[in-house]
Protein backbone atom coordinates (compact mmCIF):
# COMPACT_ATOMS: atom_id res chain seq x y z
CA UNK A 1 0.00 0.00 0.00
CA UNK A 2 3.00 2.29 0.43
CA UNK A 3 2.69 5.19 -2.02
CA UNK A 4 6.36 6.21 -2.26
CA UNK A 5 8.95 3.82 -0.94
CA UNK A 6 12.70 4.13 -0.60
CA UNK A 7 15.43 1.65 0.17
CA UNK A 8 17.44 1.52 2.24
CA UNK A 9 16.09 3.50 5.20
CA UNK A 10 19.56 3.84 6.69
CA UNK A 11 22.92 3.74 4.94
CA UNK A 12 26.23 3.95 6.77
CA UNK A 13 29.35 3.81 4.64
CA UNK A 14 32.96 4.85 4.41
CA UNK A 15 34.26 7.86 2.55
CA UNK A 16 35.16 7.03 -1.03
CA UNK A 17 32.59 4.27 -1.46
CA UNK A 18 29.87 4.18 -4.11
CA UNK A 19 26.27 3.64 -3.05
CA UNK A 20 22.75 3.66 -4.51
CA UNK A 21 19.35 4.58 -3.16
CA UNK A 22 16.21 3.25 -4.81
CA UNK A 23 12.77 4.83 -5.03
CA UNK A 24 9.47 3.49 -6.27
CA UNK A 25 6.01 5.06 -6.43
CA UNK A 26 2.73 3.27 -7.06
CA UNK A 27 0.60 6.40 -7.44
CA UNK A 28 0.72 6.49 -11.21
CA UNK A 29 2.51 9.85 -11.11
CA UNK A 30 4.62 10.97 -14.04
CA UNK A 31 7.14 13.13 -12.19
CA UNK A 32 9.65 12.10 -9.56
CA UNK A 33 12.17 14.05 -7.51
CA UNK A 34 15.20 13.70 -5.29
CA UNK A 35 15.67 16.09 -2.40
CA UNK A 36 18.46 16.47 0.13
CA UNK A 37 17.59 17.53 3.69
CA UNK A 38 20.51 18.78 5.71
CA UNK A 39 21.02 18.78 9.46
CA UNK A 40 19.07 22.04 9.75
CA UNK A 41 16.11 20.36 8.05
CA UNK A 42 16.40 22.49 4.93
CA UNK A 43 14.96 20.63 1.93
CA UNK A 44 16.67 21.29 -1.37
CA UNK A 45 15.74 19.83 -4.72
CA UNK A 46 18.46 17.93 -6.54
CA UNK A 47 16.84 16.31 -9.56
CA UNK A 48 13.49 15.83 -11.19
CA UNK A 49 12.34 13.44 -13.90
CA UNK A 50 9.17 13.80 -15.91
CA UNK A 51 8.19 10.74 -17.94
CA UNK A 52 11.72 9.39 -17.55
CA UNK A 53 13.26 12.62 -18.87
CA UNK A 54 15.54 14.73 -16.68
CA UNK A 55 13.93 18.16 -16.26
CA UNK A 56 15.64 19.58 -13.20
CA UNK A 57 19.33 19.20 -12.45
CA UNK A 58 20.39 21.57 -9.73
CA UNK A 59 24.00 22.42 -8.91
CA UNK A 60 24.78 18.99 -7.60
CA UNK A 61 28.25 17.42 -7.90
CA UNK A 62 28.45 15.06 -10.85
CA UNK A 63 29.25 12.29 -8.39
CA UNK A 64 25.46 12.13 -8.05
CA UNK A 65 23.74 10.41 -10.95
CA UNK A 66 20.01 9.80 -11.08
CA UNK A 67 18.47 7.15 -13.26
CA UNK A 68 14.82 6.56 -14.11
CA UNK A 69 14.25 3.16 -15.73
CA UNK A 70 10.51 3.85 -15.91
CA UNK A 71 7.96 6.35 -14.62
CA UNK A 72 7.52 4.48 -11.35
CA UNK A 73 11.19 4.33 -10.40
CA UNK A 74 13.90 6.87 -9.76
CA UNK A 75 17.23 5.75 -8.36
CA UNK A 76 20.16 7.81 -7.12
CA UNK A 77 23.73 6.63 -7.43
CA UNK A 78 26.50 8.41 -5.57
CA UNK A 79 30.16 7.89 -6.41
CA UNK A 80 33.16 8.60 -4.20
CA UNK A 81 31.12 9.50 -1.15
CA UNK A 82 32.30 12.44 0.94
CA UNK A 83 31.62 13.44 4.54
CA UNK A 84 29.47 16.34 3.33
CA UNK A 85 27.12 13.96 1.59
CA UNK A 86 25.76 12.88 4.96
CA UNK A 87 22.11 13.91 5.02
CA UNK A 88 18.62 12.54 4.61
CA UNK A 89 17.64 12.00 0.99
CA UNK A 90 13.96 12.08 0.08
CA UNK A 91 12.29 10.82 -3.03
CA UNK A 92 8.96 12.38 -4.04
CA UNK A 93 6.45 12.18 -6.85
CA UNK A 94 3.69 14.32 -8.28
CA UNK A 95 1.09 14.05 -11.00
CA UNK A 96 0.73 16.06 -14.17
CA UNK A 97 -0.61 19.55 -13.60
CA UNK A 98 -0.04 19.42 -9.85
CA UNK A 99 3.73 19.51 -9.74
CA UNK A 100 3.96 21.25 -6.41
CA UNK A 101 1.71 18.80 -4.59
CA UNK A 102 4.29 16.19 -3.88
CA UNK A 103 4.16 12.87 -2.11
CA UNK A 104 7.32 12.03 -0.24
CA UNK A 105 8.97 8.78 0.65
CA UNK A 106 10.16 8.05 4.20
CA UNK A 107 13.71 9.17 3.46
CA UNK A 108 17.14 7.52 3.46
CA UNK A 109 19.51 8.64 6.16
CA UNK A 110 23.01 8.51 4.70
CA UNK A 111 25.96 8.68 7.05
CA UNK A 112 29.44 8.87 5.58
CA UNK A 113 32.24 8.05 8.01
Amino acid at each position, binding site marked *: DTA*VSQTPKYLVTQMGNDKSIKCEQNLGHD*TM*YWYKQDS*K*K*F*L*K*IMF*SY*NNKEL*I*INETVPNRFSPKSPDKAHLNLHINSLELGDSAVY*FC*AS*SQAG*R*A*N*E*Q*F*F*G*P*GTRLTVL
Partner: protein
Amino acid sequence: TQLLEQSPQFLSIQEGENLTVYCNSSSVFSSLQWYRQEPGEGPVLLVTVVTGGEVKKLKRLTFQFGDARKDSSLHITAAQPGDTGLYLCAGAPGTGGFKTIFGAGTRLFVKA
Protein backbone atom coordinates in the same frame (compact mmCIF):
# COMPACT_ATOMS: atom_id res chain seq x y z
CA THR B 1 19.02 33.65 -0.99
CA GLN B 2 16.00 32.21 0.73
CA LEU B 3 12.98 32.72 -1.53
CA LEU B 4 10.55 31.62 1.16
CA GLU B 5 11.13 32.98 4.64
CA GLN B 6 9.34 31.22 7.46
CA SER B 7 8.83 32.58 10.94
CA PRO B 8 9.19 31.77 13.68
CA GLN B 9 11.86 29.13 13.23
CA PHE B 10 10.94 27.49 16.51
CA LEU B 11 7.83 27.60 18.64
CA SER B 12 7.17 25.88 21.96
CA ILE B 13 3.69 26.31 23.42
CA GLN B 14 1.28 24.76 25.87
CA GLU B 15 -1.59 22.56 24.81
CA GLY B 16 -4.67 24.65 24.12
CA GLU B 17 -2.85 27.76 22.93
CA ASN B 18 -3.28 29.28 19.48
CA LEU B 19 -0.40 30.01 17.13
CA THR B 20 0.36 31.42 13.71
CA VAL B 21 3.22 30.53 11.40
CA TYR B 22 4.19 32.83 8.55
CA CYS B 23 5.66 32.23 5.12
CA ASN B 24 6.85 35.30 3.23
CA SER B 25 8.47 36.03 -0.09
CA SER B 26 9.23 38.91 -2.41
CA SER B 27 8.24 36.68 -5.34
CA VAL B 28 4.78 35.88 -6.60
CA PHE B 29 3.75 32.24 -6.44
CA SER B 30 1.11 30.56 -8.57
CA SER B 31 0.32 28.42 -5.53
CA LEU B 32 1.75 27.64 -2.13
CA GLN B 33 1.71 24.36 -0.26
CA TRP B 34 2.00 23.58 3.43
CA TYR B 35 3.56 20.32 4.57
CA ARG B 36 4.07 18.76 7.98
CA GLN B 37 7.05 16.55 8.71
CA GLU B 38 7.42 14.33 11.74
CA PRO B 39 10.77 12.93 12.92
CA GLY B 40 12.03 10.08 10.78
CA GLU B 41 9.40 10.59 8.10
CA GLY B 42 8.93 12.49 4.88
CA PRO B 43 6.88 15.69 4.59
CA VAL B 44 3.14 15.18 4.22
CA LEU B 45 1.07 17.60 2.17
CA LEU B 46 -1.55 19.45 4.23
CA VAL B 47 -3.02 21.96 1.79
CA THR B 48 -2.55 23.93 -1.41
CA VAL B 49 -3.67 27.55 -1.72
CA VAL B 50 -4.04 28.97 -5.20
CA THR B 51 -6.11 32.14 -5.26
CA GLY B 52 -4.97 35.42 -3.70
CA GLY B 53 -6.87 35.95 -0.45
CA GLU B 54 -7.95 32.33 -0.29
CA VAL B 55 -8.65 30.81 3.11
CA LYS B 56 -8.77 27.07 3.67
CA LYS B 57 -9.61 25.19 6.83
CA LEU B 58 -8.50 21.74 7.86
CA LYS B 59 -10.07 21.01 11.25
CA ARG B 60 -8.20 23.29 13.68
CA LEU B 61 -5.77 24.50 11.00
CA THR B 62 -6.54 27.62 8.94
CA PHE B 63 -4.42 28.48 5.91
CA GLN B 64 -4.44 31.82 4.16
CA PHE B 65 -2.85 32.98 0.92
CA GLY B 66 -1.96 36.66 0.70
CA ASP B 67 -3.85 38.86 -1.73
CA ALA B 68 -0.70 39.43 -3.79
CA ARG B 69 0.19 35.70 -3.66
CA LYS B 70 3.55 36.45 -2.04
CA ASP B 71 2.85 35.19 1.44
CA SER B 72 0.84 32.69 3.42
CA SER B 73 0.00 31.91 7.02
CA LEU B 74 -0.96 28.85 9.00
CA HIS B 75 -3.02 29.35 12.14
CA ILE B 76 -3.61 26.52 14.60
CA THR B 77 -6.39 26.84 17.13
CA ALA B 78 -6.18 25.06 20.48
CA ALA B 79 -2.94 23.27 19.67
CA GLN B 80 -2.55 19.67 20.75
CA PRO B 81 0.58 17.57 21.34
CA GLY B 82 -0.25 15.72 18.12
CA ASP B 83 0.38 18.95 16.21
CA THR B 84 4.05 18.77 17.12
CA GLY B 85 6.23 18.67 14.04
CA LEU B 86 8.10 20.64 11.39
CA TYR B 87 5.83 22.80 9.25
CA LEU B 88 7.12 23.64 5.79
CA CYS B 89 5.75 26.02 3.22
CA ALA B 90 6.63 25.43 -0.41
CA GLY B 91 5.86 26.58 -3.91
CA ALA B 92 7.16 27.28 -7.37
CA PRO B 93 7.78 30.99 -8.00
CA GLY B 94 6.39 32.67 -11.06
CA THR B 95 3.96 30.73 -13.18
CA GLY B 96 4.71 27.48 -11.43
CA GLY B 97 6.56 24.50 -12.77
CA PHE B 98 8.41 21.55 -11.42
CA LYS B 99 11.05 23.33 -9.32
CA THR B 100 9.54 23.60 -5.87
CA ILE B 101 11.21 25.83 -3.32
CA PHE B 102 10.84 25.00 0.36
CA GLY B 103 11.02 27.32 3.31
CA ALA B 104 13.41 26.47 6.14
CA GLY B 105 10.48 25.33 8.27
CA THR B 106 8.94 26.10 11.64
CA ARG B 107 9.54 23.56 14.33
CA LEU B 108 6.49 23.38 16.61
CA PHE B 109 6.47 21.68 19.98
CA VAL B 110 3.20 21.46 21.87
CA LYS B 111 3.53 20.55 25.53
CA ALA B 112 0.79 18.58 27.28
